[in-house]
C-alpha cells in the first residue's frame, strides 16, 4: 500500500494522523510545493505582529514526519493525475504511483482584473509564509499601505502590519467589513474599533484604475500608497482534479467519507466541497479546523476504517487588536440579541435548534458550548434556553446530561 498526499498543509497533516491511527507500516509520500515544515497559514499575521516566530509556527513537532515514517517531496509540483494508471506526473518529469491518493491542494489568492494593476511595483497577496516575508521585507515605518478587501485576510494583514507602517487604508466594494461572518451591527462594532486603532476604510468603493503609487477610486477619491495588498478572496485549487476528470463544482466534490467521484482518490481542506450540517448541502468551508478534520477522516478511510464526517459547519474565531469575534453556523431563523457597550451577541434559532451565532467582544467566553448545540443538533426544548441565551453554561442542561458530560471520560 502506498498513500500519496498532494499538498503539505493542515489537511495532509490530519490525513497522516488519520492513516497512522490504523496503519503504522505502509508508505506515505507527501508532495508539497513549499519548502517549510507544515505551518498554519492563519499564523502569518501573528508572525508580522511578532507574536510568533517561523520556528514556533511549525504545526507539528520537528520529528513529526520521521516519527510517522513520511517521505516528503518538498518544492515539488504535481502536473497531472492519471486515475486509470494510478500515477502522478511531477513537474520535474518524474512519476509517482499511488494506491490511495489525497488531494489537498488548498486555495490561492484571487486577483480580480483591475485597470493598470501592472503599473504597481510593490504589490502583494497575503496567503503564505513567503507572502508575509516578502511584505515584511518591503515595508518601512514610512509606508503608506493600501489593502484591497475588508475580509478576514485583508483585516488580519492590516492588524499584522499596523504598528510597522505609517498608515493603512482599506478599500472594499461591500458596504461593510467582514460581511462573510458578521451582521451589520457586528461589522459596525469591529469597524469602529479598527478605526480607533488608526485604520481608514473606503467602503462601497473600488479602484477604477492604478498608477504607480496612486489608486483612483470609483468615488473619485485618489489614494497615495507605497505598498498594495490584494486580499479580495481565495479560490480553491481544483485544476489538477478537474483535468483528471474528477467531479468539481466550486471545489472538489466529496462525500461524507471525503471520497471524490474517482475511486481511491480523496480530497480535503480548502480545495474540497463537502457536506455542511445545518444546510445539508455541499459547501466551501475554507477553515483550518475543517481542513484538519476532513484530512483526518480521509486518512482513516484510506487506511480502510470506515469513518464519516457528519458535523461540519462554518465557524470562525478571529481577533483584531484585542477585540475578539467568534461566529458559527448560518444566520437564518429567529434571532435573539443581547448587547452592551463592550459586547454583542446574536443567536439564530430554527425550529427547535440553534443554527448560528455571532459573538463580539466580551460575549465570546465559552462560545464552544453554543457551537456544540449547533453541531450536536441539541433540541433547545431539552434545556433551559433562557439561561443559555444569557450565557453559555452547562447549568442549562438537564442534570442527567450534565452527569454524562462531567462524570465520564469523553
Amino acid at each position, binding site marked *: 500500500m502506498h498513500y500519496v498526499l498532494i499538498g503539505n498543509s493542515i489537511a495532509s497533516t*490530519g490525513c497522516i494522523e488519520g492513516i497512522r491511527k490504523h496503519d503504522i507500516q505502509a508508505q506515505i509520500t507527501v508532495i508539497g510545493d513549499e519548502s517549510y515544515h507544515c505551518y*498554519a497559514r*492563519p*499564523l502569518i499575521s*501573528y508572525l508580522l505582529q511578532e*507574536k*510568533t516566530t517561523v520556528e*514556533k*509556527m*511549525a*504545526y*507539528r513537532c520537528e520529528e513529526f514526519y520521521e516519527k510517522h515514517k513520511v517521505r516528503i517531496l518538498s518544492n515539488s509540483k504535481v502536473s497531472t493525475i492519471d486515475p486509470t494508471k494510478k500515477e502522478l506526473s511531477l513537474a520535474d518529469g518524474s512519476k509517482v504511483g499511488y494506491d490511495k491518493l489525497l488531494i489537498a491542494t488548498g486555495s490561492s489568492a484571487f486577483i480580480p482584473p483591475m485597470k493598470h494593476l501592472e503599473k504597481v511595483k510593490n504589490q502583494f497577496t497575503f496567503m503564505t509564509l513567503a507572502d508575509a516575508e516578502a511584505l515584511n521585507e518591503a515595508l518601512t515605518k514610512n509606508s503608506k499601505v493600501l489593502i484591497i478587501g475588508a475580509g478576514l485576510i485583508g483585516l488580519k494583514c492590516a492588524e499584522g502590519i499596523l504598528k510597522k507602517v505609517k498608515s493603512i487604508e482599506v478599500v472594499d466594494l461591500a458596504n461593510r467589513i467582514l460581511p462573510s461572518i458578521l451582521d451589520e451591527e457586528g461589522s459596525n462594532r469591529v469597524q469602529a474599533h479598527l478605526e480607533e486603532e488608526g485604520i481608514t476604510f473606503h467602503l462601497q468603493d473600488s479602484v477604477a484604475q492604478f498608477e504607480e503609487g496612486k489608486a483612483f477610486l470609483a468615488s473619485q477619491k485618489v489614494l497615495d500608497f507605497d505598498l498594495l495588498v490584494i486580499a479580495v478572496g481565495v479560490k480553491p485549487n481544483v485544476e489538477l482534479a478537474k483535468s483528471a476528470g474528477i467531479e468539481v463544482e466550486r471545489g472538489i466534490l466529496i462525500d461524507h467519507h471525503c471520497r471524490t467521484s474517482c475511486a481511491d482518490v480523496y480530497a480535503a481542506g480548502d480545495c474540497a466541497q463537502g457536506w455542511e450540517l445545518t444546510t445539508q448541502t455541499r459547501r466551501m468551508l475554507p477553515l*483550518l*479546523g475543517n481542513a*484538519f*478534520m476532513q484530512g*483526518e477522516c480521509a486518512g482513516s478511510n484510506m487506511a480502510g476504517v470506515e469513518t464519516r464526517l457528519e458535523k461540519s459547519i462554518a*465557524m*470562525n*474565531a*478571529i*481577533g483584531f487588536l484585542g477585540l*475578539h469575534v*467568534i461566529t*458559527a453556523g448560518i444566520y437564518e431563523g429567529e434571532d435573539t440579541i443581547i448587547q452592551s457597550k463592550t459586547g454583542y451577541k446574536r443567536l439564530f434559532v430554527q425550529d427547535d435548534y440553534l443554527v448560528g451565532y455571532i459573538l463580539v467582544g466580551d460575549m*465570546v*467566553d*465559552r*462560545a*464552544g*458550548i453554543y*457551537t*456544540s448545540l449547533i453541531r*450536536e443538533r441539541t433540541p433547545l426544548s431539552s434545556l433551559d434556553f433562557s*439561561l443559555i441565551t444569557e450565557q*453559555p*453554561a*452547562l*447549568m442549562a442542561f438537564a442534570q442527567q446530561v*450534565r452527569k454524562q*458530560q*462531567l*462524570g*465520564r*471520560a*469523553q
Partner: protein
Amino acid sequence: MVDALKDKKIRPRIKVEQQGSISFAVNCRHCTEALCVKNCIAGALSQVDGLIVIDQEKCVGCYSCIMACPFGALMSNEEGVMQKCELCATNSHGQPVCVQGCPNKAIVYEER
C-alpha cells in the same frame, strides 16, 4: 484572602458554575477526540499520554479552542494566551490543587 484578591481579576483554570443551591466545577475533560486540538491553528494544543496540554509559547490567543470546546473549559491568561486545567500534571502540585482544596470534597481525582 478575599481582601488580597480585591480588584484583582481572578483567572482560574476551572469554571465553577452556580445557580441557586446547585454548583459544580467544570474542568477540561481531556477528550479522546479533542475538538480544541483539531481546531488549534498554532499546533499549540496536543494530546500527551491522554492529557490535553497547551504549549503557551506557541499559542497566539486566536480563541479557536474557545470556539470549539463543548464544555467551555479554556480561558485566556493575563498574557492573552490560553490556559485550562491540565490536572496539575504540568506543575509541581502533584494531586490536583482543586481536589486538595475543595472543602466539601466535591471534586475527586480518579480514572473513569
